[in-house]
């Protein structure tokens, strides 16, 4: 009993140290965002703002249309996630469970797409987007991001679908259910954690992308957050406070989102476990 308690304490200490390392850079950014300009470049750097200065936040929102950037990023990232996960959950299921020829070819093909360095395909993609009239639009970015994230999403979901025990499907089949019905009613709920994880991965990949966003959407009204933040520095200067404030604002909604979804997923998991 006492041994358990002791190892518990060690466990928490370990987790705490780990958390500190993980969170520290972000803490540093938050602190920087509240530092008044005169404190920003002190040597050695100070660990706490001398006074809480909100100027960086004010200028983050007033100097640039930051809310527009956030809105654009949200639209692009959410649509990409929906589209990619939707498309690949079908593909993943088929590849994991159905019998047909050429599965390995399909998986390899998908993977090979993600092997190409992004910088090499920017200019030909620009050419295509121009021809399709998709420059300066959401759809251009959504299609691009979806394609880039399909391989990851497809591989991931295929693996998850494979791990789901086959007996439940067999039972459904014997009951006369179609594979599609089985997929929607039985497999999808069981695969919830996998789908959720994939969705987060895709979402953040789309949320973070810089190069395509920079070249495809040149109008301020259609820019996404990473490009928007690149608009803060001057040619030779770096307003570090403003940039920190802007990045804190970018990360907060993601943290809130994860915290909110957290419960859903855990409840989804327990529901799955009860059924299983």
């Amino acid at each position: 009993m006492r041994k358990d308690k002791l190892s518990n304490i060690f466990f928490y200490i370990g987790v705490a140290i780990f958390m500190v390392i993980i969170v520290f850079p972000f803490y540093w950014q938050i602190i920087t965002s509240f530092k008044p300009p005169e404190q920003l470049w002190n040597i050695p750097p100070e660990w706490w703002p001398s006074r809480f200065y909100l100027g960086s936040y004010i200028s983050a929102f007033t100097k640039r249309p930051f809310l527009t950037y956030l809105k654009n990023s949200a639209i692009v990232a959410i649509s990409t996630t929906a589209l990619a996960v939707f498309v690949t959950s079908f593909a993943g299921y088929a590849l994991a469970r159905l019998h047909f020829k050429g599965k390995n070819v399909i998986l390899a093909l998908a993977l090979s797409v993600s092997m190409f360095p992004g910088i090499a395909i920017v200019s030909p993609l620009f050419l295509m987007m121009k021809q399709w009239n998709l420059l300066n639009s959401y759809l251009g970015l959504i299609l691009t991001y979806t394609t880039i994230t399909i391989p990851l999403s497809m591989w991931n979901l295929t693996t998850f679908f494979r791990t789901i025990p086959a007996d439940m499907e067999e039972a459904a089949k014997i009951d006369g259910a179609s594979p599609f019905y089985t997929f929607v009613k039985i497999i999808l709920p069981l695969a919830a954690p996998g789908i959720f994880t994939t969705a987060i991965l895709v979402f953040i990949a789309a949320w973070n992308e810089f190069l395509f966003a920079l070249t495809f959407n040149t109008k301020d009204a259609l820019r996404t957050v990473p490009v928007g933040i690149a608009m803060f520095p001057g040619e030779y200067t770096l307003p570090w406070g403003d940039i920190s404030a802007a990045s804190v604002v970018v990360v907060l909604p993601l943290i809130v989102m994860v915290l909110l979804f957290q419960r859903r997923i855990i409840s989804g998991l327990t529901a799955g476990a009860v059924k299983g």
Partner: protein
Amino acid sequence: MQKRRSIKSTGIPENVLGYLMVTPALLCILLIAIFPIIRTFSLSLTDMKMQFPDAAKYIGLNNYMKLFKDERFWNATYNTLFFTIVSVAMELVIGFAMALVMNMPFKGRGLVRAAVLVPWAIPTTISATMWKFMYHDQFGVLNDILLRLGLIDQYKSWLGSTLSALWCAIIADVWKTAPFMGLLLLAGLQTIPAELYESATVDGAGKIRRFFNITVPLIMPTMLVALIFRTLDAFRVFDLIFVMTGGGPGNSTETLSMYAYTMLFRNLDFGLGSAIAVLIFIFVFLISLIYIYLLNIQND
């Protein structure tokens, strides 16, 4: 067996249904990705320089020959391999630890799960600037911490030394992407049925035996997939290096993608730049073949 291949209730043969379900994803890929890839391949066989686009001609494999004799190319290859192997290995270990912790029931687990996502949710362009700033020889907090701990006796220029710059990039990369690994592995852990552990415990297996006999084999497919994608990403690392060092000091952090970028966008040498891109593709293709081979063994 016959029964599995055709489904009576809908009348669609199983293989047709399979192709149907795969089509949307493939369509996306074909629509968007195939043209750029073919173009890059064909450009790599020319001496296309954007400054004189009309003078471009077919030169066969000359660009590749040039690269194989190019010291800078091999230096970039070495840097890329070093970066990839070290950072992916560290990410795997740390990510696995994260996943195991997050899979345990304890108070504050939700908080840990959310916190772990923070590094990953910060766009690379920002997190790289952030790290660059923390590594700064004067304003950087890293020097401050190490000095307070007595580990160094004067400020050091971490990004300015050929010995430490690549390591700095690796640490920033591990910090940012270990959560990716952690999350994927966590999802994998969650699909392992609890009964397996229970029955093993009943059979008298200890914690360590349960880990190696149940956890590791069952998580292997997920782990391989996570490894594939992390390796592919690490091998093509660009943003991070671009922001933190720009390839310096003295080209000691120049990776293949950085080299390709310089050739394509700075020098407008589309022939040679495309050839580097194709070589990256081939390297990565070989790496993933190994993984796929391992994965197939796993599945059989």
